[in-house]
Each structure stands twice: as C-alpha cells, then as structure tokens.
C-alpha cells in the first residue's frame, strides 16, 4: 500500500489531480460555513451582473442570484450525488458479482445473462427509462445513474471472485464448516475490496458527469435546488447574451472530471506493473547506437561479415545488462558459422545487433563495429540499414508462429518481402513467392500460398520463414535458433533443407543455437559464447574432437545426439551469471570444476592455441592444437 502511494506520488499529473480534487472536496465540505450569499435569494434588478463586480465575484444569474454561492452549493450537491451513485452502484454491483462468482453454476449463469442484457443497452437509454418511470428529480436521477452502472461492477467483481472462490484458503474455510455467508464476509470480501474501491474511484468522475448530464436535460435536480448540471441547463438560454453564467458551472465540471481522470490514470499506471519497467516502450526502427569508445578495429578485406568488439547493453531503469560484451567474429564467403551457448549467453542479441534489430529501448549498441563487405553498419544511416535488411542480410527466427504476421497470408508476406526491395508487379512477385515455397519443399505451393500462418503446421511455417529469408537471394542468412520450437523429426528436415540451400546457393549462414548436434551437422566453424563473450572458437571438427574450454566440454557432454531437447541444458550445475553484475575474471568460474584463484583476477583474454583455435581460459583442456 505504501509502495503504491509512493508510486502514485511520483506521477506528477496524478498528484496534481489528487491535490485539485482534494481542494474541491474541501471547499464543498466547507461551503455551509463560508461567508457566502444565500444561493437561492433572487434579486431580479441585479440580474446578469458580470463577474468581478462589487459583491458578486462571479456575477449573478438570470434571477440575480449570486453565482459564486450557487457554484459552491452546486458543486457540493454534484459531488455528493456522484459519490452516492458510485457508492450505491459499487455496493449492489459488488454484492451481485460476489454472489454470482461464489456460487457459480446456475445462479451465476442466470445473473450473468441478465447483466449481459443490461449491458446491451446504450447506458443512457436505461437511465432515461428509469427516470421516465420514477419521474424527474435529483433522487431519481441518482438512482438511474447508479442502476445503470451496477452491471459494470457486477461483471468485474464476479471475475475477481471466481478467481478467489477456488483458492485453498476458501476451500479450507469450507472444510472447516464455515457458512457461505461467513466465508463471503471473512475470506472473499477482504480480497475483492481493493478492487471495488479502485473501480469506484475510476468511475466516480463518470457518475458526476452523468448525473450532471441528467440535470442538464432537466431530468435531475429541480429548481430552485441546483447542481452543476442544472445550473448549466438553466444558463443555456442566456448563453449568447451572458456566457459567464454557462462558463462558471461548465468549467467547474471540467476541472472536477479532469482531476478525477488524472488521478484514475495514475492509479491505473501504479497498478499496472508492466508500465513500471518501461516495457511498454515501442522498439525504434533500428537499435540505438551510443558508442562511448571508438569503433573496433577496421574491416578485414576478405570477411563478408565481421563483428569487431561489439557491445550491446540493455538499460532497464537503473540497471545495465551487458548482454554482449565485446564480441569478435568473422565470416568468410561460403561459410557456415555456428554461434552456440545457453539461453542468456547473448548469442541472439549478438545476431540481432548485426542489423540493428535489438529492441530499443531498452537495447543499445554501446561499442564496436559490424562490417558488411567492409562497410560499417553500427551507426549507419537507417536507410542504408533498411535497404540491406532482407536484401543482403536476412533473418530466420525461432518461433515461426509468432514471427509471421497472423493476419496476412503467407503469400502476401512473401510478396511484400520481394516488393520491398524490388519494384516488380504483384503478379510477378506472387509467381516468385510460389517458386520460393517450392524451393523450401512445401507441397502444393500454389494452394499453400493463400494460407494463413495459423493454418499451417510448425514445420511448414518455418519453411515459410526460410522462404522469406531467401526472397531476395541474400548473401548472409542469420538463423536464430530456427529449429528450437520444432519437434525432432521436423528439426532434421529443416536442417537438411538449410544445408542443401547453402550448398546450392552459396549463401553464408550464421547459425545461432544451443545444440551441438545441430552444429555438427551444419557448421564449418563454431564460436562458443558465455555471458556475452566468445570463450572458444575453432573449426567444428577440431572442437568436437577436442574441446579446449571447460564450458565447451560440459556443453558438449550434455548433448549426445542430434536434436537434444532443452532439458539437457540443465545438466550443467548452476546458472550463467546475471549479466548486470558480472564477476571479475572468468565468468564461468562459479560453475567450473577447474577453477583456481587466478581465474577470478583480471581480464582473461581470448588466446590463440592453433591456426584457427582460440580459447578464453587460463587452464584449457588442451594446451595446443597440433598443426
């Protein structure tokens, strides 16, 4: 509760709303003891006195009554009626909701049907019908507004109650032989009460507005008694000649409702934990670049794709997660490089950083370089990045259901992939889309092209994902765990497909995975990643034959065959370090069985131990790779 209030106070707008509302309520409470003129005493000779006149600060109305006094009394009345309506609606609605949710079954069914019907009315029709039956008058308007809002409370509270009614403590109370009434009062009610109060606080503005509205129509408070709505209603006839009589009550309603809205928004934000972490930020078109150091070493002429000292961080609140901490990779033409590591090792973030696809905020590339054919991509203009995306460097993602647009056919998505980069007619692009589907061995491609993603199997969807990556004959395909979400037999098919494509088309693949079996089948070289850094690098054969880093050895031991499940990863005791507080020295030290004092000191470098081998360990499993 305290934390909630603190959060609310930090939201300045909500605080402003709270203060304004507090002032208005205070004034309304104090109205009877303030030295005000009698609000109902008419003085026709002094009618329509303009504001700021002697003796009438806000002027007078069409009967010469003091507007300031009428405003105060009207506000008092409007607030009272609004709060009363909210209270009645909340009480009755909550009672209905609790009964419905607690008893369930038939009772619930009948009540909720009835509530559904009530909610099928445009609310004011119901209110008008009730006022019509009871006759105009403030009390009846209050009843009408309260009644109209009962279904809203009933439905909300029922939802919460259903969730609570089957919790253990309620079952326990039932077993203890407590009566239903007692359970409701002692177990259920205390748990739903906060929800009731919050729902009430967010609707009270609405109730004030609605009762004012009915009064404005002449169906609420009757003269001489006046709330803000009827003041406005009476002033309407003098709108053109004496607008101040309308402005005074109108602005007051505006102030009250706005203050309550601000407060309500603040309450909602404070209650919604997703907003706290800033997770509801939209990702920018390309990852932000804030390099505090100079870019990495310059491009190597022969590499198609080169990562040099790449650093990517996530800034979430006061914490900084170093997801990628200085990664060097080079991929030569015609090559397939595997990047392997546990989840959280930074391998996917590395892959996404290449084309600036790390969600930002909170992601940020804070150092290093990415070169494509010698051209720097980190910090490159967005338009350059965009024109390379999908055309030269394409991605295949892990979960094909989530990564395809659910509402467009796969054909439309393929056509778009083609037409973003090439100005070809739609029909031609469609023919090309069918060709692509055939090339990834989707049967009946002519029919399948009009399917939606949800109409396909997981394996077929991933084939579509691959077809989309191939749409523009890219130089590089970055495959981010493309088989993880699939079952084992489908995995094997997809891997065979990728292998064939790479041989036929000569496309370079950067393959991100956690599975050594997959690497063995597909990759020429492997880089092993741990806690945001490369810990070992070499040709697949060498590493499979003799892993040099203790982590690699353990990772390999986990996966005896192709298609190892995720379960096996847990076979390494301990967890990777949290990347917002990396230890000094070797990040693997806490889990390593060869750890010694020197491991925890200073920076351990990635050392060459052979023509193509590098390892980041002071006591590698093998000292030197035989030439």
């Amino acid at each position: 509760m305290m934390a909630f209030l603190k959060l609310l106070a930090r939201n300045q707008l909500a605080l402003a709303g709270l203060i304004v509302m507090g002032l208005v309520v205070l004034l309304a409470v104090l109205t009877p003891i303030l030295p005000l003129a009698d609000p109902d005493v008419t003085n026709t000779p002094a009618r329509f006195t303009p504001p700021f006149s002697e003796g009438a600060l806000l002027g007078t109305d069409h009967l010469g009554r003091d507007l300031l006094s009428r405003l105060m009394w009207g506000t008092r009345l409007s607030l009272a009626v609004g709060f009363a309506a909210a209270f009645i609606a909340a009480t009755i609605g909550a009672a209905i909701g609790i009964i419905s949710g607690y008893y369930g079954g038939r009772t619930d069914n009948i009540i909720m049907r009835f509530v559904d019907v009530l909610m099928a009315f445009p609310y004011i029709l119901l209110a008008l019908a009730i006022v019509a039956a009871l006759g105009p008058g403030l009390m009846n308007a209050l009843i009408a507004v309260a009644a109209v809002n009962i279904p809203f409370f009933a439905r909300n509270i029922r939802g919460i109650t259903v969730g609570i009614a089957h919790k253990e403590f309620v079952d326990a109370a039932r077993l203890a032989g407590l009566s239903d009434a007692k359970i409701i009062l002692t177990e259920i009610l205390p748990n739903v009460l906060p929800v009731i109060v919050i729902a009430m606080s967010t609707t009270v503005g609405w109730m004030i507005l609605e009762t004012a509205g009915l009064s404005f129509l002449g169906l609420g408070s009757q003269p001489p008694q006046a709330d803000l709505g009827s003041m406005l209603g009476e002033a309407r006839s003098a709108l053109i000649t004496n607008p101040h009589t309308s402005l005074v009550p109108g602005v007051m309603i505006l102030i009250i409702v706005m203050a309550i809205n601000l407060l309500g928004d603040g309450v909602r934000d404070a209650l919604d934990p997703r907003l706290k972490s800033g997770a509801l930020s939209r990702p920018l078109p390309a990852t932000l670049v804030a390099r505090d150091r100079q870019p990495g070493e310059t491009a190597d002429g022969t590499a198609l794709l080169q990562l040099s000292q790449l650093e990517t961080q996530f800034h979430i609140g006061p914490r900084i997660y170093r997801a990628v901490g200085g990664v060097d990779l080079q991929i030569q033409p015609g090559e397939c490089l595997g990047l392997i590591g546990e989840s959280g090792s930074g391998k996917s973030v590395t892959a996404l950083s290449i084309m600036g696809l790390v969600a930002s905020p909170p992601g940020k590339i804070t150092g290093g370089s990415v070169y494509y054919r010698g051209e720097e991509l980190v910090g490159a203009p967005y338009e350059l990045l965009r024109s390379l995306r999908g055309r030269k460097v394409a991605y295949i993602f892990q979960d094909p259901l989530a990564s395809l647009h659910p509402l467009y056919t796969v054909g439309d998505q393929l056509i778009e992939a083609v037409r973003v980069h090439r100005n070809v007619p739609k029909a031609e692009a469609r023919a090309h889309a069918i060709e692509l589907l055939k090339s990834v061995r989707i049967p009946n491609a002519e029919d399948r092209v009009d399917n939606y993603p949800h109409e396909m199997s997981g394996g077929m969807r991933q084939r579509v994902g691959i077809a989309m990556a191939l749409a523009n004959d890219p130089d590089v395909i970055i495959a981010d765990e493309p088989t993880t979400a699939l079952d084992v037999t489908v995995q094997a098919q997809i891997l065979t497909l990728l292998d064939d494509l790479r041989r036929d088309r000569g496309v370079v693949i950067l393959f991100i995975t956690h599975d050594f079996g997959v690497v063995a089948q597909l990759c020429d070289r492997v880089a092993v990643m741990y806690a945001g850094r490369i810990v070992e690098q070499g040709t697949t054969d060498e590493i499979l034959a003799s892993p040099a880093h203790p982590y690699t050895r353990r990772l390999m031991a986990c996966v005896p065959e192709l298609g190892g499940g995720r379960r096996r990863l847990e076979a390494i005791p301990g967890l990777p370090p949290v990347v917002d507080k990396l230890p000094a020295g070797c990040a693997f030290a806490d889990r390593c069985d060869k750890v010694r004092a020197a491991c925890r000191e200073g920076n351990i470098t990635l050392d060459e131990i052979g023509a193509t081998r590098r390892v980041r360990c002071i006591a590698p499993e093998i000292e030197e790779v035989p030439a």
Partner: protein
Amino acid sequence: MGRYILRRLLSAIPVLIGISVIVFAIMAMIPGDPATAILGSYATPENVAELNRDLGLDQPLVQRYFIWLGNLVQGDLGRSFNLNRPVLDEVLERFNATLILAGTAFILCSFLGIAAGVISAARQYGFADKAITFAVLLGISIPSFFLGMMMILIFAVNLRWFPVSGMWPIYGTRDIWALIDHLTMPALALAVVATGVIARLSRSAMLEVLRQDFIRTARAKGVRERGIIWRHALRAAMVSIIPVLGIQAGFVLSGAVYIERVFQWPGIGQMLVDAILRRDILLVQGGVVFVAACYVLFNIIVDVAQSLLDPRIKT
C-alpha cells in the same frame, strides 16, 4: 460467413427478448393506474376504457407483457396521445435524424481516434505524442454538452461560421450542403469524447503490437517504417480496436441525447426527454426499445466486421 451471420442473429434473439422484458418491467414500476399514467391529463373515462381494452391493462402483468410483445413484433408500438400519432412513425422520423448525427460522429471519432492513437504510438514520447496525450485528456474530461455550448459561442455566435442550432435552415433549401452546415458542430462536439477514448486505446494497442515478433520480422525484411506502422502494426491492433469501436458507438448514441438538446437537433434523444417531461409513457417505451434493438443489431455488424478482419476467428 453466411452461417456465422445467421448464428449471430439467432444469438441476439434472447438479448432482444431480455431487453423487452427489462423495458416493460421498468415501465410497470410506474405507480398508480397505468391507463391514467399513459393518458395523463387527457384521460376521459372513455379513453381509459378504450386503452384498457387495447393494451389489456386490466389484465395481470404477464399477460400484459405478451400482448405488448405481440404488438411489438408486428411493429405496433402504440400511440402517442400527446402527439396524436403512432409511436413508430415518430420514432422512425426522429431516429433518422439521430442516425445522421450519431453516424457522422461515429465515423469521425473512429478515423480521428485511430489516426491520433497510431501517430501517438509511432512517435512515443515525442512532441506529437505529448500533444495528442494532452488533447486526449482534455477531450475525455470536457462534458460534451458544455463543449457544445462553447462551440456555439465561438463558432456560431462570434465567428459566424456555422448556424447556432437545428438541422435545417428555417428558410431556404434542404439540400446536403445545408445539412452539412448544420451538422458539423454537433457531430464534432459529439465525437470528441469518443475520439479521446479510441485514441487512447489505439495507442496502447499499437504499442502492444509493435513489440511483437512479427514486427521484428517485418523490420528484418526491410519494410519501411511507414509500412510497419500502418500495414503491419495497425492491422494487428485493429483486432483489439474494433470491439472498442462497438462499445464507443453506444456512448456516441448516448451522448447524442445531450448534443441534440444543446443544438436543438430533432433526434430521438430530444424526443425521449420531451416525452419524459410530458409523461408520454408509450413514446418513451417505444423509443427505448427501438433504439436498444438497433444497437444490438449494430453490435452484430461489429462482430461480423471483426471476423472478416481476423481469419483466426472460426466462422
């Protein structure tokens, strides 16, 4: 699709029956002799006897309901004794005016609201976002009837851009231009609150969608930012925006009651308020049932639109 529509229409029948029961029950709460209540000051003993016969008012409540329902299905909503014409005729004529006003406002708030929400999300934390957020807060806080009065003061009285009130010019032709001239201010005033609500919701729906994996896929394909926002994100966000449009249509219809009053628009809201003040019970009853039924049908249209938009909904 045809079967889906049929199914939705059938499922509306219990709701419509429920509506008729509720309206009837509310009207039955009127204290005293129903015939006198309906006829009001016009009641002569002969009238009362006739009405009792026609509406079965001397019979028990349940029978009365079925007689009323039977007439209702045949399109007989009774007769307004104040206006001395069939309730249905009056209701249809007035509803037509309301439909023009509320329909225009609904179209306005849908387009403006969605556009504002999308722009706000696309420029999150930017100037446009802040400006829109502030305008939305103001929009949803200002009572529509007060806004309408201020608009009259500024745009009709001072600037003389639009007529002060009414639906048609008192003298002069009743063509489309005259209508637009009279319609602009009330439709805008009516649209403001709903625009704010829709803008707010569209913004959060867009922000939710923009974080999805398929947006990243589209970016990885090299789709331009405009395409990301309007083609990919908005299309997906519409799935959660459409139901809110349905709800807001109800609020627009409700708000029309105030706006019609402010601008002297001869719609069904004005009719209902006048009927309540004159205790014309049958007119209120007929008007409420008719509009509620139309709203139920409108919501079926919304559902069908939703199913057209989202292929994952089984039809």
